[in-house]
Structure formats: structure tokens, C-alpha cells
């Protein structure tokens, strides 16, 4: 009897567990703002639900939105909201009406758009294309893709033919060699055979343009706007009302540094504020990478990337935009001389043996690292233990000092008895005792 009860209980528990696992989250139909927000470096896809408090976009930069009705659900495993656009995805048409705090109206009509990024040495540059330009860019990209596919197909045929010819000639040489007949001419021909060149994919795009879509381009001056969608019938779409915050980019052009210590490649130290000081215990090489950076409101920036994210409206965050090109650093201090450091490519190698660490070595394009890309381009700043303060000045390719690019590296000294200064702390204490003693003697207490 007891065994039966236990078996029934186990089965019941298994049933509950299985139900819990297969339980699908509840879906809600909502009018969403589907967003592709520019984040200063890239585009981030996000969406704003009906009860989302605000839509945040960087001011004076193109972000895209469309208003659609879809299903949303909360996924407790990741703690995030998701859309189920396969089940329901109705894109609403009309004009987007935005009204700023002074009551000025901005009407946005839907446009066809696409965007792509082109590769530069240190970063990517985004191009936003609207209307006919978007269609033309897409057609151009399609043409490039088609040309590549054709070339690839031709290459496949040519390569197969070449492989066949090569195999035939090799077999013929082997046969001639076996029968003792001369094969010099065939061998020369074999050695002179070159395989067909493999066609390269169009490399001008880092991120190619997507098929043009229709939406609203949110390129707004800084401010807060009350927004809603007005349908072609002149009615306000219920659930489309949102507050749009266009937040400004601040501190533009200021330089920040990423510093990678040679003893710990995985632990990058950031020096973002122009007044910040870099501290080190010395005896290390710091690989510095200067970046142009922008400053954004913490809450608004996080919401631009993920509308459900939370941030702090009272704080500001530095966001790295791109590495400073062709710069050079002058280091003064240390042993007196001024050291000019040029940017060099480096490669991170895993060290062998029991250490199981990494080593940053100079990139050897012709030797050990042939065919690979450097891991980082940085300035090697040696920080000796006996140095006190090293002062960095950053210059651009034209030799101009860059604003916010100066830093101090201080080698922190820790005495053998770091608590010896505690004696200074006790001075007021002894003064107090002395005062009380004098007072006691005067008053006779």
C-alpha cells in the first residue's frame, strides 16, 4: 500500500514538473514600437511595449522605428520580454506625430530606408540611405552579390577542370616514370600549372545593406516629445502613444584609453575621464589604445540599446566610438628622457607549459603570424618599478595634441610598513591628553 502511494506521489510530481517545463508563457497582444536604435557605434534592435515608459534615441542621429501590433511574452528563464511576430505581425500605416514640450509639431511620414557600414582601419562608418538611394544601394549590393556568385560558379568549373588536368598529368608522369621513358616536358608543364584564382567577396561592406524596409526615421533635435501614430483615416491609433526622448551626445571628441597589462591580457583597465590617473605597481608593460569617446546619460543610453533596461538618470557613461588613427604618444618622466611611442600591431599568444597564461608579442606578418590578423594595435608603454610618474601626451597624425588625451601613470609605492603613518593619526589623541592634563592641573581636578 505504501509503495503504491509513493509511486503515485512520484508520478504526480513528475507530471507537475513536466507540465511546468512544457508550459508556454502567456502572450499579450500589444501595439509595439519596433526600433533599430543608433547607439553611437552600431545599431541595436529593441522594442517598446505599451507600458514602456519612454522610447530613447540619440539626438541628431538616424534611428528607425515602425509601429506594429504583435504578441509579447515574458520569458522567466532570461528575465526578458520577447515578441512572437510569427504569430501576429501587423504593421500600421499612417504618420507619426511628435509634439515637443513647447507644443511644436513634427510630422514624420514613412520612408523606405536601409543602412550599411563600410570598413575602416579602426572602426566602421555607417551610411543611412533613404528612398531611392536605399533602393539603388540595395540593387548595387545585389549586383555585387550576383557578380560574386557568377564568378564563384565560374571558379568552381575552372577549378574542377584544373584539378582534373592536374591529376591526369600527374598520372601520366607516374606512368612514364614507371616505364622508364622521358617525362621532363610533362614535369615542366605540371610545375608551370597555376590554379585559378578564387574570387573574393565584395569587401567594401562590413555590414551589407539589408533589403529596404519602410518605417519612420527618428532624427530629432534634443528634447522630449509626446508621440502617437495617426492613421490614414485621421484617427489616433490606440496604444501607439509614447514619450520619445532624444538625448544629446556630450563630451564628443574626448579621448579615453584602454590599457591592457602585459601580465594579464584579459583584464583591460579603462581610463575614461580626462582628469583620471592611471595607477600601477610597476614592472609591467601597458598596451594603450586611445579611443575617441562620447558621453551619454546612463539611463537613456541603456534604454536606447534595450528598452526594458534600467539605468541611472543622474549619471553619465563614456562610450568608445573608434580608436584614434595614426596617433603617437609622448611619454615624459621616468628616467628623464622623452620617449616617443608609435602604434604597433601585436599578437596575443598562449604561453606553453604549466603557466597557462598569455603573452603579448610583436606581430610578425611574414613569420610566425603569416596569414593572420594582429590581435590589437596599441602603444607599448613600459612602466618600470622605479619610476614615479609618467606623463602621456597624445598627438594625432598631423602632430596636434588631442583634447583629453593627456594622462598620468603613477607607480604606487607601498612601504614595508604601510601603517607607520598611523602615528600621525594619534597626534590629536596625544594633544587631547595633554590638554586634559594641563586643564586638570589648573583646575586641580
Amino acid at each position, binding site marked *: 500500500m505504501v509503495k503504491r502511494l509513493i509511486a503515485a506521489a512520484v508520478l504526480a510530481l513528475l507530471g507537475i514538473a513536466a507540465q511546468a517545463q512544457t508550459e508556454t508563457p502567456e502572450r499579450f497582444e500589444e501595439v509595439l514600437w519596433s526600433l533599430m536604435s543608433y547607439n553611437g557605434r552600431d545599431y541595436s534592435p529593441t522594442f517598446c511595449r505599451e507600458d514602456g515608459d519612454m522610447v530613447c534615441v540619440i539626438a541628431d542621429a538616424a534611428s528607425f522605428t515602425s509601429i506594429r501590433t504583435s504578441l509579447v511574452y515574458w520569458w522567466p528563464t532570461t528575465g526578458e520580454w520577447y515578441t512572437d511576430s510569427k504569430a501576429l505581425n501587423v504593421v500600421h500605416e499612417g504618420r507619426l506625430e511628435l509634439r515637443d514640450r513647447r507644443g511644436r509639431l513634427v510630422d514624420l511620414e514613412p520612408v523606405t530606408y536601409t543602412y550599411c557600414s563600410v570598413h575602416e582601419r579602426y572602426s566602421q562608418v555607417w551610411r543611412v540611405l533613404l528612398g531611392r538611394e536605399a533602393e539603388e544601394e540595395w540593387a548595387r549590393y545585389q549586383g555585387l552579390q550576383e557578380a560574386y556568385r557568377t564568378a564563384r560558379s565560374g571558379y568552381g568549373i575552372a577549378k574542377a577542370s584544373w584539378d582534373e588536368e592536374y591529376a591526369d598529368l600527374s598520372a601520366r608522369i607516374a606512368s612514364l616514370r614507371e616505364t622508364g621513358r622521358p617525362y621532363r616536358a610533362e614535369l615542366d608543364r605540371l610545375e608551370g600549372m597555376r590554379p585559378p584564382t578564387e574570387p573574393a567577396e565584395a569587401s567594401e561592406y562590413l555590414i551589407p545593406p539589408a533589403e529596404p524596409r519602410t518605417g519612420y526615421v527618428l532624427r530629432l533635435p534634443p528634447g522630449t516629445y509626446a508621440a502617437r501614430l495617426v492613421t490614414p483615416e485621421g484617427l489616433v491609433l490606440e496604444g501607439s502613444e509614447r514619450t520619445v526622448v532624444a538625448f544629446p551626445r556630450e563630451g564628443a571628441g574626448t579621448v579615453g584609453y584602454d590599457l591592457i597589462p602585459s601580465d594579464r591580457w584579459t583584464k583591460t*583597465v579603462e581610463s575614461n575621464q580626462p*582628469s583620471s590617473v592611471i*595607477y600601477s*605597481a610597476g614592472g609591467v608593460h601597458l598596451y594603450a589604445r586611445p579611443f575617441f569617446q562620447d558621453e551619454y546619460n546612463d539611463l537613456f543610453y541603456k534604454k536606447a540599446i534595450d528598452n526594458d533596461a534600467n539605468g*541611472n538618470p543622474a549619471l553619465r557613461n563614456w562610450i568608445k566610438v573608434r580608436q584614434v588613427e595614426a596617433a603617437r604618444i609622448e611619454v615624459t618622466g621616468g628616467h628623464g628622457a622623452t620617449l616617443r611611442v608609435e602604434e604597433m600591431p601585436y599578437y596575443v599568444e598562449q604561453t606553453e607549459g604549466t603557466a597557462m597564461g598569455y603573452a603579448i608579442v610583436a606581430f610578425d606578418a611574414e613569420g610566425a603570424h603569416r596569414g593572420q590578423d594582429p590581435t590589437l594595435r596599441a602603444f607599448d608603454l613600459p612602466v618600470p618599478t622605479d619610476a614615479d610618474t609618467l606623463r602621456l601626451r597624445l598627438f594625432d597624425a598631423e602632430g596636434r595634441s588631442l583634447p583629453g588625451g593627456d594622462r598620468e601613470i603613477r607607480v604606487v609605492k607601498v612601504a614595508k610598513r604601510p601603517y607607520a603613518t*598611523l602615528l600621525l593619526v594619534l597626534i590629536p589623541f596625544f594633544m*587631547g591628553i595633554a*590638554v586634559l592634563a594641563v586643564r586638570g592641573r589648573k583646575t586641580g581636578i
Partner: protein
Amino acid sequence: MKAAARPRRRAHAALVIAQRLLFETMIGPGIYVAACCALLAAHALVTEFALSIEPGGFNPERTALYRLVYELIVSAFGQTFFDGLFAEGPFVLAYTVSFGLLAVYFASGSVTRLAMERRVGAMELVCYGPADGTSCLLGALGRDMALSLCSALLLLAFLGVLSLRHNLAMGPHLASAAAALFLLAFAVSSMGLLCASLATRAASAAALFTGLLLLFAVLLAARYAGVTGYARTLASALSGALQWFSPLFWWDLAVRMAERGALPACVGLLPLAALSASYLTAAHLLTRSAGSGPW
């Protein structure tokens, strides 16, 4: 008494009272114990920071104190706040903690003492017959400011020694923080004097002062803390209503404006000075309306 001579007499009485209060403070043990505690806090924060530096930079995990500081600050205010606080080194935090400790000690001492004297009318009766209530307020304020100035100089000298010893930078943020904190101490003392004028007992004056200070501190902390939902709404509503009377709000605003380069620190601190003046005016009017009664 001629009207023109009154301010001069009042200033003289305030000066004499301030000197007397200073003397009394210096012969008591409290100030030395408070100074010891403040220096100890500053010493711990700076020395442990130096011990937390490794070849690759500052690593709070290296020392127990900074592990705790890191966890407290990051969990309450976030990584960005922590990075900004230690961008120049440990001195801004060390100075703020130690000076804050001393300034609150001085102000709360004045509040308790003034409220007690208001009740018994001791000072005028026993020592200074010509002095009135406003002179007593100004005297207490003078005593607080003199002590705050001495504390600031002592702390900066002490931090300078630690800076030389560990090769840590005393940057421009520390200088602006020191100036702003001195003015904040002035505003907090003025607020304390208003509390002393409002309350009828020493205990209620101290409770009012401490309660207000805590409330303003919590509202400021909530501004930077990553609170969400109802807590944020409540904090925003309370801040919206009360922040205009908070010296901490104006101080924070001035510091942030100066950091962003939007306004010079001296201009940003003008509203704080104006708030202090309003506190003092209110305390003076309350004192005068009380007449010669218990004062």
C-alpha cells in the same frame, strides 16, 4: 542703543561668543576623539587603496576594505559611479568621509548647545549681558566655521603626507570637492541653527537636525541608487517637494555642473550660499520674534 551701533555690537558679541565656544571646544576631549576617528578613516581608505594597486591597475578585490567598499557602492549606485569616484584616486572619498564626519560633529554640537542655552538663557545671563539671540547664533556659526576650516587644513595636510608616501595624485577634483564641502558645512551648520531656533528642547533640536540631515542624505542617495518602480516614484516625488530645501541637493548640483564644465564651481555654489543665507535669516527672525524671553 543707536540703530547704527547695533550691528557692530552684535558682531563684537558674536566674535566674543565664538572665541569662548572655541576655547570650550578645545579644552574638551570630544574634538580630539573626533579628529582621531576622521584621520583614521582617511588613513584606512588611502592606505588600503595603495595596497589594492597591482601592476595592471586598481583591483578592489585585493583588500578586504575595498572589497566591501566596492560591493556597497556598486550594488547601491552602479559601476559608473564607482569608476568616477576613484578616477583620480582615493582622496575624494577619503576627504569627503573624514570631513563629513567632523562637520556633522561640529554642527550637532552647536545645535544641542544652542537649544539648551535657549531653554535656560544661560549665556546672556551669566556671561554676556549685552548679547542677544542672533549674536549667539552667529557666534555658534563662527565657531563651526573656524573648526571646519582648521579641520579642512588638517585633513588636506594629512592627505598630502599620504600622497607623498604612496605617490598618489591629489587632483583637481579634490580641490573642488574641498571647496564645495566647506560651503556645504556652512549650509549644514546654518540648517542646524535653524533647527535649534525651532525646537524648544535640546533633544528635539538634535532629533530634528539629525532627521532632516538623514532625510536629505537618503534623497540624494536615492537619486544615484539604481532603485526602480515604486521606490523610484516615491523618491522622485519626495525629492521634487523637498530637494529645494536640501543643502545636499544644491551641493551635488554644483559639483555635477562643475564636473561637466557647464558652470564654474564658484557660480554653481551660489544657490547653496543663498540657501545658507535663507536658513540664517529664518533663524534670526525666529530668534527676534521670541523677543528677550528665554534668550
